[in-house]
């Protein structure tokens, strides 16, 4: 998976040598086959559950990365995830909307909400944007908690139906896995294509230097809103997908701690690349489970890993792979 570095979010890469392109293509193919076949080989449902979480978290991290590509870090990402989840869950419970449509609806609603919010919030940049998204996320959690007539407050929503595709309910972990895998591939491909397009170029210019981008004719406001809306919309849709898997939703399901987790995944994987989000999610999701035996130490190890990555591998896990491949090449792009 390492090879698709042309889809960087913050750095322009030199064109890859044809041999490397071939290698990365082959690596991708192998990964795809493995992803399709491996779950059939294990009977341990817990691993499949873990895989599902990893796929969903990857989507959350990548969508956050999309917002980060214009240089803005959102500390309220979990609120959009939750918003999408509630939209779809309520639509399914109150209006019997098929979950598959609910997911689409969730994505549209959260995307639209992000457009409206973005018009106001994206005027701020840097630390201020971080803080305002943090606060907005807190407000959302409070509203969801207290609007009992609609959301059932802390009691949460029970018995949310599973996704049904052409009459086949995705009620087992394995079935949901293939759905999640498909969604994951779709999102990753979409973002990759987006970043290679004119949009991606505009995003990167804005991240580098807002004033410069503006003076070279780029409509900063427009592109920021696009990134924010797409990132949040994808997150909302993924949140809806998740809620039709867990089948229970409460204000506790997606909180500020989850926003922190998504940022951690993005940073640990590699903030400046799209793959970073995926890598971070794949690495960090199973970690608490692996460490579960050491109750208490588990969280500390999480924090220590984050700190170590920041200190010693500032461009994330992706850069380890990259420097490995770049051995001998002088185009070191890490800071």
């Amino acid at each position, binding site marked *: 998976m390492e090879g698709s570095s042309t889809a960087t979010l913050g750095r322009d890469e030199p064109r890859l040598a044809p041999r490397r392109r071939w290698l990365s293509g082959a690596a991708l193919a192998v990964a795809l086959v493995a992803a399709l076949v491996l779950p059939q080989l294990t009977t341990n449902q817990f691993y499949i559950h873990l895989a599902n979480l990893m796929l969903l978290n990857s989507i959350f991290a990548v969508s956050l990365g999309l917002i980060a590509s214009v240089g803005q*870090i959102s500390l309220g990402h979990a609120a959009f995830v939750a918003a999408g989840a509630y939209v779809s869950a309520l639509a399914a419970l109150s209006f019997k909307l098929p979950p598959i449509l609910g997911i689409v609806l969730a994505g549209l609603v959260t995307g639209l909400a992000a457009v409206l919010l973005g018009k*106001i*919030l994206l*005027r*701020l940049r*840097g*630390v*201020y944007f*971080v*803080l*305002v998204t*943090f*606060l*907005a996320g*807190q*407000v959302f959690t*409070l*509203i969801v*908690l*207290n609007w009992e007539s609609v959301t059932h407050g802390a009691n949460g929503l029970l018995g949310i139906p599973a996704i049904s595709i052409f009459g086949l309910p995705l009620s087992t972990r394995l079935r949901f896995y293939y759905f999640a895998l498909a969604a994951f591939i779709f999102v990753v491909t979409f973002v990759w294509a987006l970043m290679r397009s004119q949009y991606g170029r505009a995003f990167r210019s804005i991240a580098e230097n807002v004033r410069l981008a503006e003076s070279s004719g780029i409509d900063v406001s427009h592109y920021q809103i696009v990134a924010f809306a797409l990132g949040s919309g994808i997150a909302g849709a993924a949140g809806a997908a998740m809620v039709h898997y867990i089948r229970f939703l409460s204000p506790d399901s997606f909180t500020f701690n989850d926003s*922190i987790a998504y*940022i*951690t995944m993005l*940073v640990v994987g590699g*903030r400046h690349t799209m793959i970073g989000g995926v890598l971070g999610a794949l690495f960090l999701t199973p970690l608490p489970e692996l460490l579960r035996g050491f109750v*208490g*130490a588990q*969280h*500390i190890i*999480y*924090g*220590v890993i*984050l*700190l170590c990555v*920041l*200190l010693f591998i*500032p461009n994330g896990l992706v850069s380890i792979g990259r420097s490995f491949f770049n051995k001998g090449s002088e185009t070191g792009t890490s800071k």
Partner: protein
Amino acid sequence: MDYSILLGQAVLNGLVIGAMYMLMAVGFTLVFGIMRVVNFAHGEFYMLGAFAGFFTYVYWEIPFVVCLLIAALTIGVLGMLVERTLIQPFRSDEMSGMIATLAISVIIQNGAVLLWGPQPRAMPDIVTGTLAIGPFSFPWSRLVVIAAAALIFTAFWLFMQRTRLGRAMRAVAQDTETALIQGIRVNYIYPLAFGMSVALAALAGALMGPVFSVSPFVGLTPMLKAFVVVILGGLGSVPGAVVGGLLLGMIESFTATIFGSLVSDILQLLLVILILLVRPAGLLGQREA
């Protein structure tokens, strides 16, 4: 109970909470003003201060004032070490520094849980009894907090205004480049500022320990409130932190007493968001360059 009692009680409550918020916010804004670091671990130093106060007061049975001093010194030194080793590497990268403090907060909080257990500890009041003025009843334990906070802040203010070190800090906060040219050793100022900042948080924690009890989780809410106050008052402005702290304490106390806590929480957040959008520099902050 009639309205005057309600109001009087609300004022006192507001002052007590405001005093604590002020101490938290001043430290937080100091670090941001001087180092441009958003310290997500600020609340955990508050918690460490609470524990320091708890252990020294309950197990060593020394006068509380000494406990406060010990708490401030130990946590302050710890802060300086943390700055030198873990924050300094991120001087040029604000975002990474912020995330690093996030990681530090996770480590400190869970370390506390491992060391001391998750159970909250009850701390005996430093002074018992209430001051009854007519129909009002003010617990001495809370009045003491207000007095102590006022004293601590005065000491801090004098330090910043009257000592060379304090002036050096303010110079660095205003313009690091010029300060460097003037010969101010920025590499010493940074750890010192960070140490002072968390010492203030630790003092707040130790002061509030007897009032609210002590557990590894007590740092979360003060951290949130520090954020809110600092935005209200202006990132980097110490007078803003004072005014903002007391103001937020009052707003919280009054809205909670009149409308209940849920409405109060939402109102506070909405107010802050409004400020960020309309006047991001806060009430007394500097305009960002």
